[in-house]
């Protein structure tokens, strides 16, 4: 009765950085591919990987892009030891990757409906693949509305994509806003939830995808509800401390859920009650 050998879920695989793009002062987007001999992964929008800076540490980072041939894109904001090390990676260097983990946005289940993306700050990273999926399968969806907020203009990530999407006005409606700006900003100033009220979409036939700071997600949900989007058609991506991503370490619990396994994407009907209990 010898135990069968089980593979080690905590073992990262080496990926090579093939492109680095500095989005803002502290946000970097890098494109990676598996090194020879490493099987490529089938990841979905909304899923995440554990990214390992050799010997420094490992953190959960969402997929911010999925490219053909197992090429992956991640966007990292430097906020601490590990994320800082990741933003210092150069082209040609190696990063350890475990994944993909979690339940994604399941964009395909919104086919036939309007898509409303509401993003705040680095929360735009996991949402970019939603927009890319909708544009790649444009005829499968109704209106595509992208609402993005940042604290200041210089903190807006993916500005090239936003510009490109905004130019293709027939296909997609893009609105951006910042919390505060100088005179050189001609766009909207205010919180992203204000954009929800003005955006053009059919609330009864829309699915909303929301990611950002927890307060922003609560307010965005409220605005969407006021527009008439049912809670069950609003999807949020939750965030908690995470060490293992395979539901063993206990850190990412939120009430009855284990976020790395049951999320990170939840519909608001399930998640909102948990987010409204303080200190949970």
């Amino acid at each position: 009765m010898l135990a069968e050998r089980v593979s080690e879920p905590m073992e990262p695989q080496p990926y090579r950085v093939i492109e680095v793009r500095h989005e803002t002062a502290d946000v970097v987007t890098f494109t990676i591919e598996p090194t020879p001999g490493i099987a490529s992964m089938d990841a979905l929008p909304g899923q995440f990987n554990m990214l390992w800076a050799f010997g420094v540490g490992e953190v959960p980072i969402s997929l911010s892009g999925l490219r053909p041939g197992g090429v992956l894109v991640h966007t990292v904001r430097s906020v601490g030891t590990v994320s800082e090390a990741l933003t210092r990676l150069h082209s040609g260097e190696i990063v350890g990757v475990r994944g993909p983990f979690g339940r994604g946005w399941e964009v395909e289940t919104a086919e036939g409906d309007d898509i409303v993306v509401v993003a705040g700050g680095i929360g735009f990273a996991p949402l970019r693949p939603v927009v890319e999926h909708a544009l790649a399968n444009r005829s499968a969806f109704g209106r595509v509305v992208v609402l993005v907020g940042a604290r200041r203009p210089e903190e807006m990530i993916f500005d090239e994509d936003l510009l490109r999407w905004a130019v293709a006005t027939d296909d997609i409606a893009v609105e951006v806003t910042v919390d505060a700006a100088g005179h050189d900003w001609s766009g909207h100033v205010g919180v992203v939830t204000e954009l929800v009220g003005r955006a053009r979409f059919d609330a009864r036939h829309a699915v909303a995808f929301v990611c950002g700071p927890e307060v922003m997600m609560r307010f965005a949900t409220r605005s969407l509800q006021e527009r008439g989007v049912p809670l069950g058609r609003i999807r949020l991506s939750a965030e908690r401390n995470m060490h293992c991503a395979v539901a063993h370490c206990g850190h990412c619990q939120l009430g009855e859920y284990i976020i790395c396994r049951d999320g990170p994407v939840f519909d608001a009907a399930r998640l909102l009650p948990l987010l409204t209990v303080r200190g949970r």
Partner: protein
Amino acid sequence: MGSVVIDRRGFELLIAALQSRDYKVVAPTARDGAIAYDEIGGVSDLPAGLTDEQEAGSYRLWCRDDDALFGYAVGPQSWKRYLFEPKTVVFRAQRVERVGFVRAGPSDAAPRYAFVGVRSCEIAAIGIQDRVFLGGSHADPHYRARRDAFIVAVQCGEPGGTCFCASMRTGPRAEAGFDLALTEIVAGDRHEFVVEVGSSRGDDLLGQVPSRPADSSDLGAARAVTDSASERMGRRLDADGLPERLAAVLEHSHWDQVASRCLGCTSCTLVCPTCFCSRVSDTTDLKGLEATRTRTWDSCFTLGHSYLHGGSVRSTIRDRYRQWLTHKLSTWVAQFGTSGCVGCGRCITWCPVGIDITVEVQALLAPLGPGRPTVSPGAGAPVEPAAPAEVPR
């Protein structure tokens, strides 16, 4: 595979038979004033003639007036320290030119354990951790490799003052999950063990030991041991509908009341046989050429446990105690399909300030309004609500 009876000498031969089959035999011993698990050389290493007295925040060993080998309840350790070790190297890598890094270990040769003296609540606790470490889509190879341990259960005859396995329906009688289960019968000159067989390898091992078939009076005597234990549980908890009932009291003022006593010391989580939280940390050698990933026991009572950039989600002790208790008795069910508590009482005994999960639940669920029973903090009389404190004039 009917039950048999072996005597003390037979039990010695049973341990020797395990050792001759290359098992590392781990069993209770008396160490540092407590019952502690350790590798044993033979039956003489067991805590013969000892018993324990347990209360909220207190533990004492006493001498018994017989030579029983298993005449005590569970001590501070649980078998989790062998299956889910306090510290495990899960991955090691070497930096290599061009390919970046390659795996350099660990080469995890799991010990071949035989656990002797496993109580019913502990079998239940192992079953709960099985669901966590083996039941999901990613199995933990370290746990898996150790889980094949040979299990010699011992039926409980001496429940501790903080035990409530009968309430949690995890004991005191083990019905499954063992290779062999012993009921120790000590009466006058008689010192025997009624042995139930739970697996073919248990049956096989028992074949090496002289025994006689158990008759109905032996089986009756064995049954009486656990029946009497069942009636002498030191604690009780009304477990019906607990997940829903606790989910409804998340903002109860009693959480603040517990928080005013709780030190956030993590002791309750370390002694708990089901608590599974761990922290993963990466280190390198000084040259930065070799990296090691280590998993260590963690606790939801630490601030770091819920740390997110900017601060901890569960920033107060109230939040952390509430997380712990509601996880054990409420949200665990949704997460893994069972309760997270087996009623072993360790968290009560080993809490330095005597916080008692059974008392806190009772206070949280007490009907509101006039006549609501007050539960005195840290009181060691949880079965009935303590009498209302006298109001000083």
